[in-house]
C-alpha cells in the first residue's frame, strides 16, 4: 500500500514536472533561438515572457479543433495520444536523484527502478514512431503521408544504432538497471583524474547515442518528417488545436527524456565529482537532484543550439549516415569493448 502510494505521488510529481518543463522548454527554445539570431524573443507576457507558455496553452485549448472530412477518423484521433504517451512513459525508469529521506522514509528518487530499465526505454521510445506513422497515414494527405514514411524509415533505422550504442555501456555495467549504471559512474575514476562517466569510458557509444537521439526526436538536422520548407508540416499538417499541441508536446517531452537519458547513461546522472556519493543527507540529496536537473537542462540546450545552427539533411543522406556510419561505428564499439573486457579479465 505504502509502495503504491509512494509511486503514485512520484508519478504525479514527475508528470507535473515534465509537463511544466515541456512548456518552459518551448519558451527556452524561443528565447535561445532569439538570442542566437539577434532577436528578443517573447517578452510581452509576464517578465521575460515567463507567462508565455500559459498563454500558448490557453490558445491551443481555445482554438477551433478542425477534423477534416477526408481523414480516417479513429486512427486520426489516436495518433496524437500514441506519440505523446510513450514520450512521457520513458521517464519512468530514469533516476532523477539518489535517495531522499522524507518523513522518516528513505525514498528512492526514481519511479520504478526496473531491472530491465534500459530495455524498457528502448521499447517505449520505439512506440513513438506509431504516432507519427498513423498520424501521417490517417491524415490522408500526400505531404503528411510522406512525412510519415520519412519518419518511420528514419526512426527504425536509428533505433538500431541507438540500441547498439548502449550495449557497450551495459557490458561494463553488467546490469540493465539505470540506478546501477549511475552508481557505477559515481564510483572510481578514468585515467585517475576524470570521473568514471561513460562519456569517457565509451566515447564512441556516447557520440552514436547522441546523434541517434537527435534522429529519434526528429530534431534538426533530422527534422525531415516535418520539414516545413519541403513537406509544409509533414505528419501533423492536418492537425489543429490541442491535437497539434500534443504532437508538439511529444517532441519536447521526447527531448527531455532523451536529455535525461544522455545525462544518466553517459554523464553520471546525479553524480557530481567531489561529492561523496554514499552520503545521503537531505541537503546532498537535494543537491543531487539539482545536479541531474542541470545536466538535463544542458543537453536540452544542446538540442536547441544545434537546431538553430545547422541546415537539414536530405532523406537519403539521413539513411546513409544511419546505416553506413553510425551502425558500423556502434558495432565497432561493441567489439572494442568486448576485446577490452576480455583482455582485462
Amino acid at each position, binding site marked *: 500500500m505504502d509502495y503504491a502510494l509512494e509511486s503514485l505521488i512520484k508519478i504525479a510529481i514527475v508528470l507535473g514536472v515534465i509537463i511544466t518543463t515541456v512548456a518552459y522548454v518551448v519558451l527556452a527554445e524561443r528565447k535561445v*533561438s532569439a538570442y*542566437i*539570431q*539577434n*532577436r528578443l524573443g517573447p517578452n510581452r507576457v509576464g517578465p521575460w515572457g515567463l507567462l508565455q507558455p500559459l498563454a500558448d496553452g490557453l490558445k491551443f485549448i481555445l482554438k477551433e479543433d478542425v477534423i477534416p472530412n477526408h481523414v480516417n477518423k479513429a486512427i486520426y484521433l489516436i495518433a496524437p495520444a500514441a506519440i505523446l504517451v510513450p514520450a512521457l512513459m520513458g521517464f519512468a525508469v530514469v533516476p532523477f536523484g539518489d535517495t531522499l529521506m522524507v518523513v522518516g522514509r528513505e525514498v528512492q528518487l526514481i519511479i520504478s527502478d526496473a531491472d530491465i530499465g534500459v530495455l524498457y526505454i528502448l521499447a517505449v521510445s520505439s512506440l513513438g514512431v506509431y504516432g507519427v506513422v498513423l498520424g501521417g497515414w490517417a491524415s490522408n494527405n*500526400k*505531404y503528411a503521408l*510522406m512525412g510519415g514514411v520519412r519518419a518511420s524509415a528514419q526512426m527504425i533505422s536509428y533505433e538500431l544504432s541507438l540500441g547498439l550504442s548502449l550495449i557497450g555501456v551495459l557490458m561494463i555495467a553488467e546490469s540493465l538497471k539505470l540506478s546501477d549504471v549511475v552508481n557505477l559512474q559515481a564510483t572510481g575514476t578514468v585515467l585517475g583524474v576524470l570521473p568514471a562517466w561513460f562519456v569517457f569510458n565509451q566515447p564512441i557509444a556516447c557520440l552514436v547515442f547522441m546523434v541517434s537521439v537527435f534522429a529519434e526526436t526528429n530534431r*534538426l*538536422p533530422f*527534422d*525531415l518528417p516535418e*520539414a*516545413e*520548407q*519541403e*513537406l*509544409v508540416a509533414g505528419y501533423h499538417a492536418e492537425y489543429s488545436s490541442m491535437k497539434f499541441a500534443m504532437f508538439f508536446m511529444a517532441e519536447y517531452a521526447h527531448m527531455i527524456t532523451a536529455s535525461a537519458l544522455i545525462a544518466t547513461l553517459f554523464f553520471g546522472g546525479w553524480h557530481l565529482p567531489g561529492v561523496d556519493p554514499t552520503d545521503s543527507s537531505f541537503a546532498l540529496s537535494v543537491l543531487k537532484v539539482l545536479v541531474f536537473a542541470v545536466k538535463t537542462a544542458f543537453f536540452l540546450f544542446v538540442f536547441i543550439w544545434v537546431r*538553430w*545552427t*545547422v*541546415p*537539414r*539533411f*536530405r*532523406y*537519403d*543522406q539521413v539513411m546513409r549516415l544511419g546505416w553506413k556510419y553510425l551502425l558500423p561505428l556502434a558495432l565497432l564499439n561493441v567489439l572494442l569493448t568486448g576485446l577490452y573486457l576480455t583482455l582485462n579479465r
Partner: protein
Amino acid sequence: MAEESAEAIETEPAEEAPEEIGDPAARALKDRFPDEVLEVSETRGETTVVCAKSRIRDILTLLKDEPRLSFDRLSDVSAVDYTSYPGHEPDTPRFNVVYNLYSHPNNQRLRLRAQVTEDACTIPSVTSIHRGAEWAEREVFDMFGIRFDGHPDLRRILMPLNFEHYPLRKDYPVRGMGERDVIAPEDPGFLGNPYAGEEEEVDDPLGSERMVLNLGPQHPATHGTLRLTLELDGERIVRCIPDIGYLHTGFEKLGEHHTYNQYVTVTDRMNYLSPLCNNIAYSMSVERLMDLEVPERALYIRTILWELSRIADHMVWLGTHALDIGAFTVFLYTFEQRERCYNIFELVTGARLTTSYTRIGGLGWDVPDNFREVVLDFVAQFPAAVEEVERLLTRNRIWIDRTKDIGVISAEDAINWNMSGPMLRGSGVEYDIRKQEPFLVYPDLDFDVPVGKHGDTYDRYLVRMEELRQSQRIIEQALDKLPDGPVKVGDAKVILPEKGEVDFGMESLIHHFKVLMDGHGLTPELGEAYVPTESPNGELGFYVVSDGTGYAYRMRVRSPSFMNYQAYPQMVNGHMISDAIAVLGSVNVIAGELDR
C-alpha cells in the same frame, strides 16, 4: 532616324546597298538572305534587321553556327503589334516578332524583327535552335496569339488556360473586358494536360505507382506564387511541370498606358527585392531612346544604389535559400543586413520598397547630406556579416552535401537555355554585363567577376557570396569618386523645374505645364531601344518602342527570373523533393518579374 524606324514595318526591301551596312552580322544576313532581309537599321548603337518570317529558322541557325557571328544566346523573344503605329498601312504585316540575340564570343547584340500578318498568324518556332526560346515564345503566343509552328508545348503561360483573348494586342482594352467575357466557361482541367498522348512506357518490374504532388502556389518554399507539379517515384522526381502566372499583373500592357515618368512607379513592383535596379534599368532605356546624357553625379549615385540593391537582393536570396535547406538562423542574419540596406533606401528615396527614385534624365532629387557616412557605415560592418554566414555554411558538411552536384547545368546548356547572371556564371561562363556591355560608371570601377566551375547549386552559392564582396568594393570606390554637380539633365523639356521656381517664374511655369501635358514634354522620337543591365539575378532590360507620343508604344520587360526559371524542370529531374527546394532557392525566382 525616326523615318527609318517607321519604314521598318514596310515590306519593301531597304534601299541601302550592302556595303553601307556597318554591322558584320547584318551584312552577312543581307548577303545570305537577300530576299528575306527587308531592312537594316543602325541607330543608337543598336542594329535591327527586319526580315520575312519564312526562313527565320535558317537565319537564326546561320547566326548561331557561323563561327564569325556565333550569336549563341537568344536573349529574348517578344512581339510588337503595329496596328496603330504611325505610318502603318492596313496591308502591311500587323505583328513583328522581335528576337534579341547576343554573341558571347564577339560580345555583340543583334535585333531581328520578323514580320507576321494577322491572317497567317504563325511563325516557325526556334526552340530547336535556342531552347531558351520556349517560354518566351509561349508568352508571345499568350499575349499576341501568334502561333509558333513546331513548338514543343505551345500553351498559354501567364494567362489562365481558358482565357480567350490576347491582351497585348492593341485592340484589347487596358481595363480588361470583364471576367465573363474573357474566360471560357469550361475548365481546361489539370494544367491542360500538356503531355497528353505522350505517356512513355515505364520499365518498372515492381509495378509501383507514381504520385503526383502539387507543390504550391501556397507552399512555404515557393515564397508565395510559384506552382510546381511533381510526378514522383517515391521521393524521386520523374517529371516536373512549373505553372507560372499567379502574379501576372500586366506590367507590359500598363507600360503603354502610363507616361514615361509614371511608369517608373510600376517598375518598383517588378523585382520587389531590388526595385531600384528596375527604376534605373528602365530609365536608361528611355534615356537612350531620347539620347539623353545623364550627369555624372547621377550615374555614380545610381551605381551605388544599384550595388546596394544587389546586396539587398542577394541577402534575401541567401536567407531564403538557407531557410529552405533548414538553416533558419542565416535567414535572420541576412535580413538584418537587408534591413540596413532598406534604411539607406528609405533615407535616399523616402520609401523602402516603392522607391520610384529615378526620373527620365536623372534622379528625382539629390541624396541627403549624410548619404556618404551612412553608406560607409554600412559597408564597414558588412564584411563581418558575410563572414559570419560563410562560417555557418560554406564549409558546413550538411550544406555541402545538400548543394553540391544538385541542379547541375553545363555552360553550354546554360547559354542555350538563355540563362544570365549568377546562374550563368555558376556554370563557368564569364559573362557580366557590367564588364561586357558596360553601363552606368562600371568601366571606371575596379571589380572582379566571380565564376563557378560545375554549375551546381553550391557553385551558384559561392558566386553570389563573392559578388557580395565585390559589390562592397564597388560601393567604396564609387563613394570615393562621387562627383559634385546636378543629378538631372539640364533639358527643361524633360525635367520638371524646381517647385520654388514654378511658383514665381513664368518660364518655369510654362515648362512645368508642358512637361506634364500629354504629348508635349517627354516625347521620344519614333524608334526603339534596349539597354541590357546586370541586375542581381541576371540580364534585365526594357525594350521600349516609341511612337512619338508621351506613352510607350510597346514596353517589353526582359526579366532574368523568367528566362532562368525555364530550365528548372531539367535541373531537378531525377533529384529528390528536398533537392527541388534547394534548386528553387538557388534559381532565386522573383515572382513579380517572373509573371510581370
